[in-house]
C-alpha cells in the first residue's frame, strides 16, 4: 500500500520550496525587515531558474540563476524601503504584484516545455532538498553563534541602539534582503524545475505567503521553520494522496487544505504568543519599522 519512505520523500520535496523561502525570510525578519514580497521573488526565481535550466540543460545553473534573479528583484524592495523609506508592507505587496506580472510576461514562450532532468542525490533525495536541509543548521549557527549573526539580530531587535554602537543598519538590512531574495528564488525554482517540471503562470500558488506564515509559526527560529515546512509538506502530500485515492470530497475542497492548515497553524501559534509572557513572541523588536537618522 503506502510506502512510508516514499511518502516521506514526497513530503521532503513538497516542503522544500517553503523551507528555502521561509529560511530566507527568517533572516530578513531577524534583521528587522518585513518583506511581504516572497511570493513575487519566488515566482521570479521559478521563471528565471526554469529558463536558465532549459537554456543550458543544467538544472544547477538554473538554481544559481534563480538565486540571482530573486536577489535582484529583492533589491527593488531594498531600494524602496532602505533608501526611499517606503512603507514595508506596501513595498512588499508591490514586489509580489510586480513579480507575478513580470514572470507572466516573460514566461509565455516557455509554456509547455519540459524541464531538463535533475541528477538524483544520495539516498534518492534531490540535491537541492539536501541543500535546504543543510541550510537549517547553517542558518541556526549563523544567527546564534556567529558575530555577523549577532550584529544582524542586534539590528533587528533595536536599530537605534545598533546605530548608536556604530553598526551600519542599512547595510546589514540590504544584505539580509538580498539573501532572502536568493533563498526565495531557489525555492521558486524548485517548484518549476523539480516538482512541476515545467513553467506555468502563477505556479507558486501562494507558497510565498505560506512561507511568511511559517516564519511566524517558527517563532523566528531555524528549527521552527523546518518543522513548519514539514508540517506544510505533510498536509500537501496527504491532500494529494486523498485525491488520488478518490475520496468522495470534491477536489476543490481538498485542495483548500494547505491554505486552511496555514490559517489554523497561524491562529494557534499567534494565540500562544499572545497569551504567553512576552508580547509578539520572539518577534524582532524593530520588525517592519524603517530606520532614518539625521546626522
Amino acid at each position, binding site marked *: 500500500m503506502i510506502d512510508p519512505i516514499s511518502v516521506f520523500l514526497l513530503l521532503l520535496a513538497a516542503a522544500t520550496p517553503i523551507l528555502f523561502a521561509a529560511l530566507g525570510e527568517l533572516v530578513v525578519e531577524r534583521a528587522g525587515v518585513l518583506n511581504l514580497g516572497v511570493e513575487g521573488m519566488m515566482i521570479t526565481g521559478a521563471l528565471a531558474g526554469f529558463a536558465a535550466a532549459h537554456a543550458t540543460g543544467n538544472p544547477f545553473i538554473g538554481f544559481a540563476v534563480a538565486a540571482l534573479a530573486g536577489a535582484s528583484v529583492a533589491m527593488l524592495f531594498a531600494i524602496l524601503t532602505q533608501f526611499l523609506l517606503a512603507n514595508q508592507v506596501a513595498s512588499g505587496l508591490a514586489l509580489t504584484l510586480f513579480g507575478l506580472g513580470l514572470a507572466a510576461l516573460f514566461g509565455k514562450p516557455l509554456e509547455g516545455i519540459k524541464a531538463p532532468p535533475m541528477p538524483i542525490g544520495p539516498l534518492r533525495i534531490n540535491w537541492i532538498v539536501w541543500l535546504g536541509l543543510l541550510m537549517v543548521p547553517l542558518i541556526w549557527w549563523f544567527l546564534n553563534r556567529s*558575530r555577523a549573526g*549577532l*550584529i544582524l*539580530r*542586534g539590528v533587528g*531587535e*533595536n536599530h*537605534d*541602539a*545598533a*546605530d*548608536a*554602537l*556604530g*553598526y551600519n543598519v542599512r547595510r546589514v538590512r540590504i544584505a539580509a534582503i538580498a539573501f532572502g531574495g536568493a533563498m526565495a528564488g531557489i525555492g521558486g525554482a524548485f517548484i518549476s524545475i523539480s516538482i512541476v517540471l515545467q513553467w506555468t503562470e502563477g505556479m507558486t500558488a501562494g507558497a510565498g505567503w505560506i512561507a511568511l506564515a511559517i516564519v511566524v509559526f517558527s517563532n523566528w527560529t531555524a528549527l521552527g521553520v523546518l518543522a513548519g515546512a514539514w508540517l506544510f509538506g505533510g498536509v500537501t502530500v496527504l491532500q494529494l494522496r486523498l485525491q488520488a485515492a478518490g475520496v468522495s470530497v470534491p477536489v476543490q475542497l481538498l485542495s483548500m487544505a494547505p491554505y486552511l492548515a496555514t490559517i489554523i497553524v497561524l491562529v494557534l501559534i499567534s494565540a500562544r504568543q*499572545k497569551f*504567553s*509572557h*512576552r*508580547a*509578539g513572541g*520572539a518577534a*524582532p*523588536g524593530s520588525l517592519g519599522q524603517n530606520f532614518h537618522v*539625521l*546626522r
Partner: protein
Amino acid sequence: MTQPEVVRAEAFRAEVFRADGIGKSYPGVRANDDVSFAVLQGEIHALLGENGAGKSTLVKMIYGLVRPDQGQMALNGQPHHPTDPREARASGVAMVFQHFSLFDALTVAENIALGMEHPPPRRELAARITTVSHEFGLPLNPSRRIATLSAGERQRVEIIRCLLQNPRLLIMDEPTSVLTPQEAELLFATLRKLADQGTAILYISHKLEEIRAHCDRATILRGGKVVDSCNPRAHSARELAAMMVGGEMRLIDRTGRQAGDVLLQVNDLSLPVPTGEGTALKNVSLSLRAGEILGIGGVAGNGQEELLAALSGEMRSAAAAVTLDGKPLGAASPEQRRKAGLLTAPEDRLGHAAVPDFSLTENTLLTAGTRKELVRNGLIDHKAAKSYAEQVIKDFDVRTPGPGTAARALSGGNLQKFVIGREVLQTPRVLVVNQPTWGVDAGAAAAVRQALLDLARAGAGVIVISQDLDELLELSDRFCALNEGRLSAPRPTEGLTLDEIGLMLGGAHGMEVASI
C-alpha cells in the same frame, strides 16, 4: 576651601580630551557653537546644561555618532575625528547612553559583545564579565536576558561593557535619571574608583546637587555655547542654575490652596500585565481631595504608565475601583471619564498624548471633543477646534507659527505646554499627569508646574506622577511611591528627606543582591 589643592593637582594631570571651537548645525538649529573645553586624567568632569543646550550633540561627536561642522578634537594629544563609534571605541572612548543602547531580547553577554570591537570567545567573555562585574561591586549574570533586568541592572550592563574596553575617556549621559538615590550613590562610588585608576570621566547632567557633590570640574553649556567653567563645589546650586538658565530661576507660587472634599478615589485596584510587557498594578489605593496635589514618585517601569492608563480609561478595571465624586468610573471609557471630569496627560508626548503628524488643531480633537463641544453627534466642528487650539496656544504661550503646525515640529517644551494646556483649559475636576516636565527646558517646566498649581488653587485635584524627585517635592502636598506596581501609603511632603524617599522607592534595587 580645597580649591588650591585641586589646582595643584591639575598641574600634574595629563589632558585626556580637548575640544577646540566645535560647531554643529541642524536645519534651523545651531546645536553647538564654538565649544572648547578639556577633560583631565582622573577627574569627573561635569557637562552641565538644561534640555536643548547641546550636551547630547557634543558627546555624540566625541563618540563618532555625529560629525562636527567646525572645530578640532584631540584625544591624548592626537587628533580625534572618529567617523563612527567603532573608531572612537578603538581610540579609547566609551559611552553610557541616556536611553540605554541595549537589546532587550539578547543576553547580557551578547549585549556586551556587540559593544566591543574584538570580543573574546563566548566562554571567555562570560568569565570576564563575571570577574570584572564583581571587582566593581556590580554583579551580573552574563546569560540573563536584558528584558528581565531592572533599570539599575541595565545600566550596570552598559557600564561593564565600557569597563571591559579599558577606556581612557568614559562618557556618561544623564546616568542617574533612572536610578533611586541609593543606586546613584553606588554609581558614584564606582565612578570615583575608576577616576582614581586614571580614567577621565565626562559626566552629563542637569541635576545640580549631584554635580556639586561628586564632580571635580564643570563646563556649563547654554544655547550650544560654553558659558562658564568652574569648580561646582565652590558654587551654590542656585548659582549653577543661574549660569545654566542664564538669569534667575522663576520661583513658582504655591500659595492660596486649601484641601476640600475627596474627589477621586482608587480602591484596591489590581490589573494584570497588559499584553505581555509592562508592570502589573497590585492593590493600589489612593484618595485625592479638591485643591490638593498628590505626588507619585518611582523609578521608571514600576507601574507609572499602567497607573495612568488605569485612570485615563485605556485600561479598564472593576467599576468601583475608580470613583469620581462617588460615581464609579473604573469600567468607563476614556470619553465617559472625560465627560465626568477626569482628565489625563500621558508621559510620551509624541505618539501618545499627541499625534506627531497631526496639526495642533487636529490634536485638540483627541481629548477635547466632548467637553469643548468640538464634536457634536459625531460631526467635527473644524472651526471650533481651530479656535480652541488658538486659545491653548495663546494662554499657554506655545511658540509655534500657528494651529496648523504639525505637533512633531514643536520643541518638547512647547508641545508639553500645548498638551497640558489642552487639558487644563477644559477645567477638569481631576487632572492626572505623568512626567509633566520630562525633557523640557527650564522656562517651559516652570510654566507647566505653575499651571498645575493654579489648577489646584481653582479647586481641582491634581496627581503628578514623576521620576523627578525635586519636582515632586516642589509641587506636591502628599507624596507616595510606586514600586513594582504597588503604591506606598502617602506621607506629607513637608519634612520628607531624600533618604526616606529613596527607601520608599525601593532603596538600592537589587544592588546588594547578586543576580546570579
